[in-house]
């Protein structure tokens, strides 16, 4: 006679499965999908251009509080304050430490020296890409420089870009 390990296993075992873990998992997935589908909606960044035909009747903004940013090729840009040729432009990149720092610093200094907010003129060149323009606008939004305009670049400024090898 074979001993079955001492115990007679003829008792039926319970077939109830504890579903708590399954429910936890299901709710986790539900929460995940609830959150990710709202984030999937494309974000929109508003852009307002000045009216083309309207002649600028307001007083021209003083050069001392305008910063001109020229967007060049290869994700490089250069900026200068005031009129072109008067102050040497500096080449920088689009990173957090580059243009954002510049925008914040200059915003501070213009506010202190003239008491009015800084106006930024963005001039993208033909060699820049859409991403550069969007990044620039993004940085302006982040640094809270809401006074800006996108205008066409002039040949003199293209010369500046060429001189600094970013055209």
């Amino acid at each position, binding site marked *: 006679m074979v001993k079955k390990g001492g115990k007679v296993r003829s008792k039926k075992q319970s077939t109830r499965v*504890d*579903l*708590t873990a*399954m*429910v936890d998992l*299901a*709710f986790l*997935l*539900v929460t995940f*999908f*609830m959150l*990710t*589908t709202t*984030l*999937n*909606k*494309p*974000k*929109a*960044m*508003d*852009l*307002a*251009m*000045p*009216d*083309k035909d309207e002649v600028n009747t307001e007083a021209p903004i003083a050069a001392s509080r305008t910063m001109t940013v020229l*967007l060049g090729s290869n994700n490089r840009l250069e900026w200068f304050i005031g009129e072109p040729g008067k102050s040497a432009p500096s080449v920088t990149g689009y990173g957090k430490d580059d243009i954002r720092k510049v925008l914040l610093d200059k915003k501070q200094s213009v506010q202190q020296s003239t008491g009015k907010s800084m106006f930024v003129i963005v001039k*993208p*060149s*033909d*060699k*820049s*890409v*859409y*991403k*550069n*323009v*969007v*990044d620039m*606008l*993004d940085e302006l*939004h*982040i640094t809270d420089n809401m006074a800006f305009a996108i205008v*066409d670049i002039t040949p003199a400024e293209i010369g500046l870009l060429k001189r600094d090898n970013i055209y």
Partner: protein
Amino acid sequence: MPRIKVPRKSTAIDMTAMCDVAFLLLTFFILTAKPKTEDPVPVDTPKSATEVTLPEKGVALLTVGKGKVFFTIDGPEARKQTLLQMGTKYNIGFTPTEVKQFQTLDNVGVPIQQLKQYLGMDAEQRKALTAASKGIPTDSVSNELYNWVHEARVVEKNLTSKELLFSIKGDSNEEYPTMQRIIAILQKQKVNKFSLITTLRAK
């Protein structure tokens, strides 16, 4: 005094019902996540830190990629009327079947002269034609994009008496001159405010 032992009952709850509800909710959310509409050209939208989302209705979309531009209007009624008006402008008649086809289309990406052919093709041929075509012509000679935009705005004003909003979905590496041309076309019609579609990134 000896403690009276209260007969303990089992505290395990039957989770089957809860599990059913959970999976039902899950299925609901998976299905309501809108199926991804395929872009006519691969567009990699640039990242930005804005968190403002695009409104659902009343927005026309200009998809820009590889130097081509595609125009999407929302709502079947608006599409039908825009198509018919473009037809009268260019003296092209569209049959009701073609109009129906157009209403199901996601975007317009072929010059209007080829549009009739395009509507008659099936999905495979359409894909091939879209890849080969240059999108809607933006040059000032044909002025097609200008006309599409103009008619769409007129139709929107008639249907909902609200202005049509424009959004631009451009590829990150799109050369600026293309964007400049499109923005210039919009500015010619005095559409000076538009939204640029971007993907979210941390500041």
